[in-house]
């Protein structure tokens, strides 16, 4: 909606008491507001202050948004910022409010709201998994739906092709070289690890072997692929600092459809 957002206050709906109050209290931190689909109120807030604003909305007695329905994100594509969307509901006052924070692609970081709502735990993990948004202060920010070692990036981003970044052959190779034992070890309990952020075109081994006709083919045996995988991760770590603008680089993988 960023393009044609209706700058409201003037829309002929009843003013939402929480929208008015949050604007009065936080002033500049409320960037704009919007009414969609007739009666759904959205407040756009300044990302660094989202935790503070949500805490107030949750605890202030006139608002009491004690129920966090949903945390999700929207990517409009084309380099536009990714919106993190919080769906709040007050069971006491029977009022709903949507709070959005827009994060530029160069800085996908926002405070976690797990200290306020336990419900945010898995929801934020999903947003991280699918969009790559890092939630600061999250107790256990790991991938949740995709496998831990998934190296193709974050699937719900618009720059992610529908069938994945690697070729089918490469995807098959990776799937077959998974070691089931890796997923049954006590390290399961090492929660609170550093989140894995994939800068996909730099994850050297994977992409290269996908484009390399000599190795694109069948599955590769256990030992070799294990070593390769370790190599992948290292490549990832090293390349993390340079290449600031990773989103505008065109896809390099071959898609053998």
């Amino acid at each position, binding site marked *: 909606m960023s393009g044609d957002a209706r700058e409201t206050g003037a829309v002929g709906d009843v003013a939402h008491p929480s929208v008015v109050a949050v604007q009065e209290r936080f002033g500049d931190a409320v960037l704009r507001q919007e009414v969609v*689909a007739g009666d759904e109120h959205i407040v756009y807030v300044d990302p660094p202050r989202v935790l503070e604003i949500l805490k107030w909305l949750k605890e202030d007695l006139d608002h009491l948004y004690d129920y966090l*329905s*949903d945390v999700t994100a929207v990517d409009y594509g084309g380099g536009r910022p990714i919106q993190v969307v919080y*769906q709040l509901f007050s069971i006491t006052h029977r009022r709903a409010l949507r709070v959005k924070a827009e994060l530029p692609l160069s800085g996908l970081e926002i405070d976690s709201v797990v200290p306020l*709502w*336990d419900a*945010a735990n*898995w929801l934020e993990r999903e947003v991280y998994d699918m969009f790559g948004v890092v939630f600061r202060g999250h107790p256990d920010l790991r991938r949740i739906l995709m496998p831990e070692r998934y190296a193709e990036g974050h699937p*719900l981003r618009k720059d992610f092709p529908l069938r994945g970044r690697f070729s089918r052959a490469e995807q098959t190779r990776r799937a077959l070289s998974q070691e089931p034992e890796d997923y049954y070890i006590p390290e399961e309990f090492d929660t609170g690890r550093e989140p894995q952020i994939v800068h996909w075109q730099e994850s050297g081994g994977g992409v290269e072997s996908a484009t390399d006709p000599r190795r694109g083919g069948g599955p590769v045996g256990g030992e070799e692929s294990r070593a390769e995988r370790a190599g992948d991760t290292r490549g990832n770590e090293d390349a993390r600092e340079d290449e600031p603008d990773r989103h505008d680089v065109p896809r390099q993988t071959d898609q053998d459809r």
Partner: protein
Amino acid sequence: MSKRTVEYEVSRTPELGMDFRPRSGPVLPTELEEPDFRSENMLINIGPQHPATHGVLRLVLELDGETVVRCIPHIGYLHSSFEKLGEYRDWNQIVPLTDRMDYLAPLIYNCAFVMAVEKMMGVEVTERCKVVRVICMELDRIFSHLLWLGTWAIDVGAFTPFLYAFQERERVYQLHDQYVGARITTSATRVGGMLADLPEGWTDGVREFANTLPRTLDEVDTLLTNNGIHAGRTQGVGVISGEDAINSGFSGPNLRASGVPYDVRKDRPYYDYETYDFEVPIGEHGDCYDRYLVRMEEMRQSCHLLHQALDRLPEGPINVDDPRVVLPSKTDCMNDMESMIHHFKLVMEGVKSPPGESYFPVEGSKGELGMYVVSDGGSKPVRWRVRPPSFVNLSVIPKLVEGGLLADVIVVNASLDIVLGEIDR
């Protein structure tokens, strides 16, 4: 908390008490000092392929003896990225994806999705369509609760209720079949209406079902509700307070079992639910037994709602008269050029939605099912998000089982009524 709801009288078996746990350890000679049996905690893995996990859920448990110290759920084994697929399909083509998420209550998902799209587009469906959708949703609420009832009974060790529940489910399958021609993958809704009007005699079938289901429920009631084994197995197990339940995002029967009367049908009414006469059962202890009681009562209330909806089912068209979303009739297509072009464009390009977005929550069988749709003016969504009730309910399982016994993990998991198709999406 509110006048609309009634406190459901929970019948308890007092002789068992809330804390039906073995207290004593192994019998040892008293004069000897108790040896220290403590050693390393054991790590065990349940699933992903295990009948009691209700799908491909994997639980990693750290055990101290039989006590669960930590529980880490792993999900994603059924991940098919429906939300991403949806971004490559037009609005009506997404409907078949929705019933593959929760195949235990497909009609609720069909309805919820198109309701969100209609709200975003500003399409108001006909009165008949509203009532038909209410019938569909209540029918599938029973459909889903019946499956929960059967598997729940098996998980606590009773086999007979499973057969009773599946006998009743078969009748709902047949009603699905008569209406849409499919037993599970219904895809019954379209933006602006339903795929077809109700077939002749279908409402009689629904009425017959709503009349006779309570009898089966009574039979299951006599088997389970005052059954000492069942009560002892479930009372005081997996307890969560109302406050914690709200904070954890619990919804649906699980939340109401903790004494919070939050029901989307009452608190954020849609489709005239405020004009129907029904009660929201709530529990008071927040344990597995209360979740059982709440769901049993919800099925009876849904029967009640089915009767009311059937009584008020108005005549008239089922599809809205809006050329933006509804195909012209076949006769018109064959007779005039404009209708033919219109038909062609709607089919080839899909229904176009103006830019906007909407979050539409409905009371699904598992909890608050929210459909969040975002459009940029095209015929395909920019984002289609499902607020998955089972996903959020399952995220609480570590809190419910940690400190309890290993055997209770299965009971707690069964009491949450999860469906992995929707958790993994």
